[in-house]
């Protein structure tokens, strides 16, 4: 039987031609996608495979919990800092540490800066080439490009001469015969819909954004010493304020932060958002890629406005879960509840004693177990085709109350929209109005891409709000950045556990930690791409990538542009998603931390 229906309502048909795309480029890490297409080149089955495993949780066992942020930060250098923050939050939770107000402001600023920079780089450098034909830009009329640009934005770099210069540079590059990263791609494909002028505009901004993104991350450099991989500390932040001294952050650096915020807002609102709208307007009929988006969405909520208050009411971007596409109800999410977040490995290259059962991260066990199914083609070290009925990915299958969930900017936006957040509603409704689209249009590849753009703008503006609050706090005389009361391991309980969460650019991220005798007894991370790139679970529910690809027609099955579009709209991060924790049979006594 080649046609089946999954418990979560998707029809799969494996009878058609199998197309393998490996590597999926313009992502972080190593991902493989296999699809079956029918006679009309419509995708009828999809298989998502995480191609790497690094074993960081095994490595964390036995180490000082205060060091864990540095290890976990190296899970991902693209969304740098997100694991570090999740880790210090998990340790602080386990140890009952309250952080100072300024530390909370600085962390929020750093995470907002991360979202702003990461979304910008994703749109222009990882995603745009799915929509923008670089070579077509050579045919553009610079004057018409200028008119197009000036009709949608007041960004100053928009003269005919500017676009003529960019085009001349591009021409010299192409004429060199050395196309570098643009080699062997899909230029000229009928899947590209933009006129040459829009392509030239986007190529110009590809270069401008590559230059500007360097500025945004300087917020990390000031507070964390560098980027990528800034420094953090359990209990607060390692930087100090020294408003009238010479040893810490003073007015000069604060002015730089403020200036970066202003410039970020301007670049996002005058370049990114107009480009997003312009490009989307040419692809409005490309409505594919919804998958789980119209069904199950998950967000943990982020940016505590007041330090140490984790209620959703206190979050600048409140979270929750949407089930079955019912926007009238946002479910509360409890990461401590063993019945809520669970991971399965029936189709993952790990082994459990009972693979029909899911395990809560605090109780999780994982052991790598690489094997191909009986219907796989090729050999163990030369895989031609995977067997999705067996184990087929280094990614586990996380589920919330048994449901496969989509996470990321679209999930955050839909959850916040459903909660009635005014700012979010205004942004979403405004964009849909400008494009002449109804609300359900956001449950798509384009909707995911649009939500990321809107969130980039939102995050840039929120940096201003957080910065102003921090300055008010400093003015009120509070300059503390770290609470060191429980820095010494002698002050810690003998056994404790904690959970930390962050809304990373790619979605909901959680770390679960066990501490025993001042050392890490167990560590588990469930990351955004684990949710989205999830393989099937024991019941056969498919994950967000696999679901989103179904039903998409390809112009040419040999050119995987449509697959790239939808997969890139999730912004995959495979180094994040492929991890394990140590096999650990030991049951610890339950310690309630809060």
């Amino acid at each position, binding site marked *: 039987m080649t046609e089946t229906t999954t418990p979560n309502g998707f029809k799969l048909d494996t009878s058609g031609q199998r197309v393998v795309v490996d590597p999926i480029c313009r992502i972080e890490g190593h991902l493989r996608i296999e699809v079956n297409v029918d006679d009309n080149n419509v995708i009828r089955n999809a298989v998502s495979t995480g191609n790497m495993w*690094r074993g960081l949780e095994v490595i964390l066992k036995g180490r000082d919990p205060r060091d864990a942020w540095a290890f976990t930060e190296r899970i991902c250098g693209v969304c740098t800092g997100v694991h570090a923050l999740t880790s210090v939050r998990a340790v602080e939770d386990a140890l009952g540490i309250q952080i100072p107000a300024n530390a909370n402001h600085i962390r929020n600023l750093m995470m907002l800066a991360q979202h702003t920079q990461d979304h910008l780089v994703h749109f222009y450098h990882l995603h745009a080439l799915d929509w923008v034909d670089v070579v077509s830009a050579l045919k553009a009329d610079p004057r018409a490009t200028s008119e197009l640009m000036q009709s949608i934005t007041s960004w100053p770099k928009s003269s005919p001469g500017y676009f003529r210069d960019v085009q001349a540079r591009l021409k010299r590059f192409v004429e060199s*015969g050395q196309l570098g990263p643009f080699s062997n*791609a899909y230029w000229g494909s009928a899947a590209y819909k933009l006129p040459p002028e829009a392509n030239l505009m986007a190529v110009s901004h590809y270069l401008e954004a590559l230059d500007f993104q*360097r500025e945004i991350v300087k917020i990390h450099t000031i507070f964390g010493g560098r980027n990528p991989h800034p420094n953090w500390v359990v209990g607060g932040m390692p930087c100090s304020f020294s408003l009238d001294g010479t040893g810490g952050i003073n007015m000069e650096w604060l002015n730089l932060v403020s200036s970066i915020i202003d410039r970020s807002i301007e670049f996002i609102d005058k370049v990114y958002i107009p480009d997003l709208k312009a490009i989307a307007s040419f692809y409005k009929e490309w409505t594919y890629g919804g998958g789980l988006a119209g069904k199950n969405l998950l967000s943990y909520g982020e940016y505590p406005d007041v330090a140490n208050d984790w209620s959703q009411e206190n979050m600048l971007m409140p979270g929750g879960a949407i089930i079955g596409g019912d926007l009238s109800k946002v479910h509360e999410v409890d990461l401590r509840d063993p019945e809520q977040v669970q991971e399965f490995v029936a189709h993952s290259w790990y082994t459990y004693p009972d693979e029909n059962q899911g395990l809560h991260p605090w109780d999780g066990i994982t052991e790598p177990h690489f094997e191909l199914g009986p219907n796989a083609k090729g050999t163990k070290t030369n895989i031609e085709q995977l067997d999705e009925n067996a184990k087929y990915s280094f990614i586990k299958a996380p589920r919330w109350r048994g449901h496969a969930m989509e996470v990321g900017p679209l999930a955050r936006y839909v959850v916040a929209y459903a909660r009635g957040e005014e700012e979010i509603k205004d942004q979403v409704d405004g964009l849909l109005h400008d494009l002449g689209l109804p609300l359900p249009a956001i449950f798509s590849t384009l909707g995911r891409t649009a939500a990321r753009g809107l969130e980039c703008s939102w995050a840039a503006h929120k940096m201003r709000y957080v910065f102003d609050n921090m300055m008010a706090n400093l003015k009120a005389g509070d300059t503390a950045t770290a609470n060191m009361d429980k820095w010494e391991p002698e002050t810690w309980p003998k056994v404790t556990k904690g959970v930390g969460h962050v809304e990373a650019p790619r979605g909901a991220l959680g770390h679960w930690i066990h501490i025993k005798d001042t050392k890490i007894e167990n560590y588990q991370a469930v990351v955004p791409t684990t949710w989205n790139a999830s393989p099937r679970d024991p019941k056969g529910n498919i994950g967000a990538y696999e679901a989103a690809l179904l039903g998409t027609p390809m112009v040419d099955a040999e050119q995987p542009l449509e697959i790239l579009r939808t997969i890139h709209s999730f912004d995959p991060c495979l180094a994040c998603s492929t991890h394990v924790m140590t096999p650990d049979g030991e049951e610890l006594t339950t310690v309630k931390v809060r």
Partner: protein
Amino acid sequence: MGIQQTFYEAMREHGITRRSFLKFCSLTAAGLGMGPEFAGKIAHALETKPRTPVIWLHGLECTCCTESFIRSAHPLAADVILSMISLDYDDTIMAAAGYQAEEILDQTIAKYDGNFILACEGNPPLNEDGMYCIQAGKPYVEKLRRMADHCKAIIAWGSCASWGCVQAAHPNPTRATPIHKVITDKPVIKVPGCPPIAEVMTGVITYMLTFDRFPELDRQGRPKMFYSQRLHDKCYRRPHFDAGQFVERFDDEGARKGYCLYKMGCKGPTTHNACSTVEWNGGLSWPVKSGHGCLGCAEDNFWDRGSFYSSVTNLNVTGQVEATADKVGGILAGAAAIGVAAHAAASVVSHTKDSNKGGAQQ
């Protein structure tokens, strides 16, 4: 190590006729949807000096090296990619995917055999027959070996490629292995750091392109221009170390005065890197300047040298005497009066010299 041979010369060397070469140019132009006049321009460019091809591979890593690279302020990453090198393969930014991406590797070997630079980010795992890092269905280590066979030289970006880094930390479950332990017959330039500083990365590349040779390397294979000093040697907080003035807790009075972070576990005294001179993100700051000790991320096996918050021992403080910093700092702090007196005496001598000199000139 110069890569002076043009693409046309390389093709002739491989027995390709001029006729076939021009046909290749026409096909390239047609593939881009361009007319015949474009083929002539491509032929001209390929007959003159081409940009050096670079193949940038990713093994087990976190992509922080690529992210750092695009932060470069001078030169800008766009200028390096568009005008200095030809970044023909880099799965993080390339437009193609799947077999179209992998074909570029075959084309590179055919066109530039022995004439391209292999840039390695991350490392290959050797356990499970290499299948803890799968690319196009095969172990990454195979791809690495194949491209290394045909390249001119290898740049090992970052601590993963240079030393092993985080996935190679104890117990190294995947047997992640640095490049020089897998590829032993090609020169490997190590540019360690987790990640390396952006301007160090672009500095290494532009040095090679400008001077047509490798930068001078130390015994470990690191460019001396960036890795021959310890952070401690040029640290702007060094006077506080010498004076025995230490931060004892994050955000304490000492932290607010910019005292030395040695007691907070700073690994600056044992770390060779350019953070205290080049600094990060356009020279804005670096970890110590923003209040956290150095993690030692450019050093071999830095993950397994105890907690990041425990002080280093056995460091060479003066360049002559082996002693622990605790001892030196302790001596200096304990004998503050003597130290100050000695320092004052030295200053007097120095001042007198200067005065004499000044006097002579008058």
